[in-house]
């Protein structure tokens, strides 16, 4: 299974999945940095992983 390409749900960028990606693995969008959990491989579906809030609390 060559590396699959998914679309980031946040910014629509192409997210290249490593060839040996497994279900449950976290991959990061190269453009908006969102961390995505691989829910399933066939069909390919990703969901946003829990994230830390911005902490510039000025």
């Amino acid at each position, binding site marked *: 299974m060559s590396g699959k390409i998914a679309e980031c749900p*946040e*910014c*629509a*960028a192409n997210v290249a999945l490593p060839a040996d990606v497994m279900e449950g693995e976290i991959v990061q969008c190269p453009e*908006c*940095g969102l961390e995505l959990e691989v829910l399933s491989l066939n069909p390919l579906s990703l969901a946003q992983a829990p*994230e830390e809030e911005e*902490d*510039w609390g000025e």
Partner: protein
Amino acid sequence: MTTTVSIIGGAGYVGGELLRLLLFHPNVTVRQITSASQTGRFVHTVHPNLRGQTMLKFSHPDSVEPCDVLFIAQPHGVTGAAIEKYAAIAERIIDTAADFRLRDAAAYERWYGAPHPNPQWLEKFVYGLPERHRAELQSARYVSGVGCNATVTNLGIAPLADAGLLESVVTEVKVGSSEAGGRPTDSSHHPERSGSVRSFKPTGHRHQAEIRQELGNNFDLHFSVTAIEMVRGALATSHCFLKDPLPEKELWKLYRAAYRDEPFIRLVKSRVGIHRYPDPKLLAGTNFCDIGFAVDAGTNRVVVISAIDNLMKGAAGSAVQAMNLMCGFDERAGLGFPGLHPI
């Protein structure tokens, strides 16, 4: 055969940045750098970062010999009057000052307070912003520099303006002290300038003319500049009021389509880490323009945040990038420094 370049007005901050870039540029050789006040001195006397890098000395402005590309970094108004003399020295000229930025002589007079000394030369110059004039630059002989505050704003809001989405824009650029150049004034005296947050030009900043020239007049533009604690850097916060609200995903697509292939534009809008929007601090010495944006949900406002190093993408960097296009070099040649963190 290497391309020979010389710099007129080399003792200032833009002249020094041009020298740094050109000394380390793979395709060119620096022949001369002039300064009336520093004639005969080693360049590191006023550009200490270049100590040990070159034994080049400042030449007198009247002793400039012919070369392939002539960079000019003199105060506004000087080059405009002397353009014929310079044109005899070099096949190609890149003038980083303001005299040849505006195509319209009337606009020049309105914003710079005096009639242009050589208006017939205006149409021979191409505005030196590669992201907006790449094709013209590849065949240009005369190129103007860009205004730093105009450039950080133009690059930030151009995709929205080009798509005709803008109703009005309110932009405030936060700027550093190096924008005023190397000459000291009362207001640049450290005890006065250090730590100040000073509304430098709340209205009437002349860089607006370059924004109009590049992006057109079919939206309202309200432009202000505020000086903050910074030496290099400019951060533009542009409040863009759109004709119709646009979801963030569409903004990503619009900006990606506009800038995907640009070597010096990065989209910086991150959901993780502490560097979530552009920050000019990280761009010191680089030729990048970083752009981010945020949609104000439930309104037609999009806040576009764009950052540059005013001495690089806002002056010397864009000038060298333009030279690369004019001379057929790799557009990124000599402009690869990635910047420092932390800094």
